[in-house]
């Protein structure tokens, strides 16, 4: 099974039980804050009466994991994008790179960590649900296999004409995510990034990065070749000068240079 979540904003009642359960399951201190922070990994936004959960999308091709120089962030076998804090050097490239602005930093600590929803990876690997999906009283957040949930999302759109816009947010965005959203109005109006490409973002980097071996091989060969030609020409020049001067100290120069 490839774990995923389906969030139906038309069902959400905004009770914030998911945020509370998240805090408890992950041992996050403090109140639920008015924006995602290192201590609030999910929250419910009220967009003119529509309740929209905010959390990590658990991309299929996560930018954060792709840019991490040490692989502290990684796409787990089970599906969630998880974090190994023992590897993290704190470069914060993940925060710059995330198209959804999800990873947050412990700015107030001398030895900070990057923090974000880790999809309850420990629970999921044990075959349990994520804490937020388990607690949701309105079944607005459901947990399951990615393909199954995607089919379920499309079934809801098909069988309830007029209820939803015809888009499962997360099906194609940045090459697909493991968190899907359904809504009754355009996602851009609900604050979702709308200008995202339909292909994997790490590919943009890889197009440049994959050329490196060629640059090294071709560039190195060319430079060695140039250096060889230039050095040989310089040496011949010096020899010619020495010969013209009839330098008696270097009698066998011509043979040496002719090779």
């Amino acid at each position, binding site marked *: 099974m490839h774990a995923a979540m389906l969030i139906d904003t038309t069902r959400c009642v905004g009770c914030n039980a998911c945020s509370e359960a998240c805090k408890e399951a992950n041992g996050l201190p403090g109140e639920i804050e008015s924006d*995602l*922070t*290192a201590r609030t990994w999910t929250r419910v936004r009220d967009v003119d009466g529509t309740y929209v959960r905010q959390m990590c999308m658990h991309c299929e091709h996560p930018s954060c994991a*792709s*840019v*991490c*120089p*040490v*692989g502290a962030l990684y796409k787990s076998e089970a599906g969630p994008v998880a974090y190994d804090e023992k*590897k*993290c*050097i*704190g*470069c*914060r*490239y993940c*925060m*710059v790179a995330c*198209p959804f*602005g999800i990873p*947050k*930093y412990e*700015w*107030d600590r*001398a*030895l*900070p*960590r990057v923090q974000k929803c880790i999809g309850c990876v420990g629970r999921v690997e044990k075959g349990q649900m994520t804490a937020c999906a388990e607690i949701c009283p309105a079944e607005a957040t459901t947990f399951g296999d990615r393909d199954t949930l995607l089919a379920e999302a499309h079934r809801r759109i098909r069988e309830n004409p007029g209820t939803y816009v015809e888009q499962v947010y997360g099906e194609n965005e940045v090459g697909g995510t493991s968190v899907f959203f359904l809504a009754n109005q355009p996602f851009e109006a609900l604050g979702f*990034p709308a200008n*995202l*490409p339909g292909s994997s*973002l*790490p590919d*943009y*980097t890889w*197009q*440049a*990065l994959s050329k*490196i071996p060629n*640059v*090294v091989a071709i*560039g*190195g060969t060319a*430079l*060695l070749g*140039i*250096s060889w030609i*230039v*050095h040989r020409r*310089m*040496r011949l020049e*010096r020899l010619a000068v020495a010969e013209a001067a009839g330098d008696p100290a*270097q009698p*066998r*120069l011509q*043979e*040496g*240079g*002719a*090779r």
Partner: protein
Amino acid sequence: MRPRITFWRTVFVAIVAAGLWATWVRFSRGLGASTNLSDQFPWGLWIGFDVLCGVGLAAGGFAITATVVIFKLERFRPILRPTVLTAFLGYLLVIVALLFDLGRPYRVWHPLVMWNPHSVMFEVGWCVMLYTTVLSLEFSPVVFERLRLPRAQRILHSISVPLVILGVLLSTLHQSSLGSLWLILPGKVHPLWYTPLLPVFFFLSALAVGLSMVILESHLSGKAFGKRLEMDLLTDLARVFVVVQAVYLVWRFQDLAGRGALGLAVSGSFPANLFLLEVGLGSLLPMVMFAIPKIRHNQTGLFWGAALAVTGFVLNRLNVSITGLEAGTGVRYFPSWMEIAVTMSIVAVGFGLFGLAVRHLPIFEQHEAAPRRLRRMWVVRGANAA
């Protein structure tokens, strides 16, 4: 002997004192207490200026070593040592700045054993580390000469060609890859700067600014150490600058036009105006100036042209890393006084170390004797082998 109190020494002490205080706050209380960085704007002055500009401004190192050692344009040898020194100090200070910026600086070695070849940062980290090693080897003959270790000097001389080639390759890779850092943000970076050609543009602009820095550094050295300027060499560098900069600008405008982003430049918005400032004042103007022989052959003209080129380069890097992201994400960022103090201290320490090196090492002296003896030895050995 008591050191004289001069204006610049006072400025130096003031800057470093502020920097030390900021350093204390940074490492005892964290990045939140010392910087204006936030969850919305995680990279600021230290990455945008200290790292991006620091690496770029040190690009003269690979350009001049290649000129002298690979292309054998021996007449550039007098500026080889100061340029390598500038580059070496530049990279050391970039690493220092990085240690300020990393949340867990004591783990800076992690990329050595924890690999992610898909990460541009991983590649840049390796290249910077390897190239700093190369630079230390390229600089070491100066130290060996001072310590009178001719054997060590000879060994270094015998590997100079492969060493310089390695340096050029590593520089090409990470100068361009610093631009690749932003490739993964197609929707976030302003279209005036986001392009798949970012790595190419970063490389070309670094090459051009590297040459300008050599000119600038020669002038400052001339002022500070009463050194005669190698005007003919600097004029030649200015000429090469014109060519590199012209290729860069034509390519840049062709790319902007091709992506339909050229119109944005005259939209009057804040990013657009910064773009005009960067390209007009910092890229076009120095190129035009250096294309005029009268300016190119004039000390003051050379100085101001190079100063403008460096300003334009710094603006470009800050535009990509800060302005371009501000526009795309709608978040404002301006560095805290502590960020500025650390940056200024790092620059001041760079100047100080350069001065110390010049005073105690044979940087500017004519060191004809050793190479000539070596050259003769090689020729004779070649002859004997035949």
